[in-house]
Every structure is written in structure tokens, then in C-alpha cells.
């Protein structure tokens, strides 16, 4: 346990968790990680998150879809022009529907890809710095630092009376 670089505390209460995070941040800890059973924006605030870049993915892929939709319909119509029902070879109104569906499809897939890329999913391999209770009722706070700074962190965390406090190392 000499060269441990991480501390993981699990709390029962939301406010304890939030306070612990704030304190750690104030103490100047760079990498503070929080676990929660549901999206808790107090914690996000405490960690100071900005806008998520997922939105860019959605936008760009959506527009790609629109373009693809129109390109596909218009080009194929011209490639072998056949007249049906006396309608124009290129009937934009009909093609709008295709373009719309393509927009949604590409947009959705882009968003998912974006999400996976950004939040490092999937990462199946298990890690010690996790507590099954996090998915049930408890909150977790993980902090990294060198030997003596961790002592400081240990104090700060203990102030909020964690249910459990253990050392560990995040593998990624």
C-alpha cells in the first residue's frame, strides 16, 4: 500500500458526496471522479462540467444523412430515367421523405457512436475501483494523487463520514 495512487470513498448521502467533491476540488485535486446510481447534476456541478460534445456528433451526422438522402434519390433517378405516372424524373417532394428518414437514421447512429467514443464505452474489463452498491443506493468519490497528498484527501473524505474508504488504482 505504499505507492497507491488512488482513494475511493463510498457515501450514503448525496450532500456528503457533494461536499467531499467540493472540498477535494478546493484542495486542488485534479482528477476527482464520482459514481452515482442515477444522473445527479449536483455532482456534475460540483465537478464543473460544461457542454457535452455529443451535440456536434448529432448535428454533423444528421446533415450527412440529409445529403445522402437527396444524393441517393436524385442520382439514381437520373442514372436510368424512367417515367412513371407522367411525373418528373426528379420529383423532389417525394425525395424529401427519404432525405428526412436518412437524417434521423444517421443522426441517431452518430449520436450513439459519439456517446460511446466520448464515455469510453464499451470497457468490459472489471476494475477494483468500483462498488456494486454504486448501481444501487450509494455514491462514490475517487481521487488520485501522490503519497502525501492522498493523506490530505483521506482527511477531507473522512470528514463526510464515508461508509467505506479504500485505496485503489483506476486502470484507465
Amino acid at each position, binding site marked *: 500500500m505504499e505507492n497507491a495512487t488512488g482513494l475511493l470513498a463510498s457515501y450514503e448521502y448525496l450532500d456528503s458526496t457533494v461536499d467531499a467533491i467540493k472540498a477535494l476540488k478546493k484542495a486542488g485535486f485534479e482528477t476527482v471522479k464520482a459514481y452515482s446510481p442515477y444522473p445527479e447534476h449536483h455532482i456534475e456541478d460540483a465537478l464543473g462540467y460544461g457542454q457535452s460534445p455529443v451535440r456536434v456528433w448529432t448535428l454533423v451526422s444528421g446533415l450527412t444523412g440529409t445529403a445522402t438522402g437527396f444524393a441517393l434519390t436524385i442520382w439514381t433517378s437520373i442514372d436510368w430515367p424512367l417515367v412513371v405516372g407522367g411525373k418528373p424524373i426528379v420529383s423532389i417532394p417525394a425525395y424529401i421523405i427519404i432525405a428526412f428518414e436518412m437524417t434521423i437514421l444517421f443522426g441517431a447512429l452518430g449520436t450513439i457512436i459519439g456517446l460511446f467514443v466520448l464515455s469510453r*464505452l464499451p470497457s468490459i474489463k472489471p476494475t477494483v475501483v468500483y462498488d456494486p452498491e454504486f448501481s*444501487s443506493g450509494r455514491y462514490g468519490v475517487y481521487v488520485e494523487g501522490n503519497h502525501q497528498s492522498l493523506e490530505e484527501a483521506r482527511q477531507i473524505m473522512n470528514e463526510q463520514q464515508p461508509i467505506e474508504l479504500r485505496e485503489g488504482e483506476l486502470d484507465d
Partner: protein
Amino acid sequence: MSLVPEGRTARGAVPHPDVHTYDEVNRDVLRALETPGKAWWALLAVAAAGVVLFFGAWGWQLYKGIGVSGLNSPVGWGVYITTFVFWVGIAHSGTLISAILFLFRAPWRQSIYRAAEAMTVFAVMTAGLFPLIHVGRLWHAYWLIPYPNSRFLWPNFKSPLVWDVFAITTYFTVSATFFYLGAIPDIAAARDRATGLRKKFYQVISLGWRGTDSQWHHFGKAYIFLAALAAPLVLSVHSVVSWDFAMTIVPGWHATIFAPYFVAGAIFSGVAMVITLVVPMRKIFGLEAYLTTKHFDAMAKLCLLTSLIVLYAYLSEFFLAWYSGEEIERTAFRNRLFGDYWWAAWTMLTCNGFVPIMLWFRRIRHSIPALFVISIFINIGMWFERYVIVVTSLHHEYEPFAWGIYRPSLTEMAILVGSFCWFGFWFLLFTRLLPPIAIAELKEVLPAPIRKKTGEAY
């Protein structure tokens, strides 16, 4: 700064007052995934048998030819297309509840939407089979998909059927993704409780979700964007399906009202189907605390609203047929009410227009057995609505000398029944493998555990 987050409702408004702590949510919901009861196995057996019947009948049709159906000229579309539209309709409420209600922050959504989304996905899986079942040459059906080929041939993007292909595939992809994404944190929860093989399984499909701040952060955003994409998609898909009819010149099909009319009908039937499914689920897995009369009341109101819209659509169709003065149109709608298929039309009107009127009464909205029965009526009514639209419009068209009669064959009936089993089969598997209620989202609306009794109020 105020620490009372938006989206966090005051205790009173929470639709499930008897649920208190996060742990009990996990306990209660995940209990459903443990050893199944006899009821579940019995249902699964029935469903499995039905699936066999389904593919048996389809195989028979492939072997003999589409002629084993009762279809003919002039009625080229019958039970198959009717059932297709029916299932597409069912598919709608799921994404509606999860996406649109999510965007509107409806409080009663959390406990239902997982089941509703599952229903959506499986309903689309069912619906998607019917266009394949009804084509004359299944082995060439892939020609509807645009792919570069040695013949230099492409599909006709002016044909509503091709729009359908795009709409349905998009809808399936998006709603399936949406469904799975929302389930990931809960799968993780299941993983953390499960043991042995099940643990392995959940480990894989939870993609190693840990509920870290960054994961929740991106997850939240992605979820909102997906919802924002899914919402218009829901509305578009059934509009496209309705255009299969509205874009033709068939009297009784060619109507501008069709898109909104179909969408409303879809939500109507979808919500009814949710009720039909959730009532027994609630019983079997003892989720009474999570699915309370408040939820059913809300769904009942949604039914009532949509039923009124649908009824309005019916009436305006008849009115416009009369008001247009177009004799052919009039004949078509007169024939609808009093022609050979009068019984179908009146079943439709009774089940979709008149029965739901009972939902005006709070007592009925709060009686779960009553709702269950009504929801079944609505399902029947909505199937007949599509039957009326498809068959009655076709059998008396422009050319009187070519008028004809259509009688569904046994094969068609087998496939219709089988489709319900096919759907049920998947739904039953779902209730056993995935948390049937959204654990994480439920926790969002529960009060967070607070230590300090003084200081800032949470």
C-alpha cells in the same frame, strides 16, 4: 445558489408514493429477473407454439404461392396489410412515451417507458415481417433496397412503398437503439446483483457501465438528442404508412386527413396495448407500488384524447364524402357503413369511438380491470379500423363491373394469430432478461438521501 434541481418534483407529485429508498427500487425491480413463476412459463409455451404456427403458415404460403390467401382482384391487399398497419401503430406509443413525454418531463413516464419501448421494438419486428409475407415473390423483395447492382437498376423513390422501407427500418434502428441505451445503467445494476452465467451476460451487454460522472454526463446529453430525433420520427413513420393509402386514387384512401388520423390512431392503439401488457406484468412481478392508478389514469386520459381525435377523423371522412358531392366517394363511404363489410365498420366505430367514452369517468379510469377490458376492445377496434380502410375501399372501387368480395383464408388467420404470439414471445423474454422498469430514472424522482438536517435544503 439553489440546490433544488429542476426535474425533481416535490414528494406529493410522485406517482408512486410507496417507494422510498434507492435500494428497494433495485430490490423490487430486479426481483422480476429472478426465478420465473408458472404463469410466465405457461405464457411462453403458448407463445412458442404460436411462433411455430406463424412460420409454418408462412412456409406453406411460400411453397404454394400467395394464392393460399383469400386475396383476389380487386382486393389485392387484405389481412396482411391490415395487420402490418396494426403493428406499426402499436409500435408508436412506446417511443412516444419515452421520447415525447421525456422532453415534456411528464412525471408518470418513468415506471412505464421501459415496457413501452420494449413493446415498440418487438411490434416493429412483427410489423416488418408483413410486407415480406404479402409480396408475391419474397425471393426478390430485396429489390426494394437501393444497392448498387449489375443491372444498373434502382428502386422507385416515388413509390410510397419505398418510403415505407426507409421509414420502418429507420424507426426500428432508432427505437431499438433508444431502448438499449436507456437500459444500459439498469443492466449494470442487474449485473451488480447477478451471479454466475447471468453476471457474465449482463457484464457484456452493460458494456461495462459504471455510472461515473462523465458517463452520466454524456449519457444524459445523448439521451436528450435521441429523444429529440425520435419525436419527429414517431410522427413521420405513421404518416408515411398512411401515405401508402393516401397517395393512391382509391376512394376511401385518397384523403389528406390520413397522416394525422393515422398518427392519432397509432398512439391510441399503442397506449391501449401498453395497458394490456402492463396490467398482467404488474401482477406477475408484484410491481403494484411502481405502477399505480396514477399511471393508469394518465394513460387512460391519453387514450381518451386520441380516441376523440380518431372519432373526429371518422366523422370528418364521412362528412367530407357527403359534402364533396362526389358520387363515387359517397358510394364508397355508404358502402363502408351499409355494404358487405358493415360489421367491420360498426365494430370499429363501437370499439374506438363509443367504448372509450367511458374513460370520462374517474372511477373507470381508476379501476384497473375495467381499463384492461377497455384496452382490449380498443386493440380489436383498431385492427378492424385498418381492415375497413384496406378491404372495404378496395372491393368497391371505380369500376362497378369489377367489384368483388374478399374472404380471408385460414392461412391468413393463422399468420395473424401467429404474429401476436411472435410478439408475445419476445416480450416475455424481455420481462425476464431486462429490468422491466427504469431503475435509474426512477431514482431521479425519489428524494435524495440527505445527512445534514440543517443548512441548505435539498
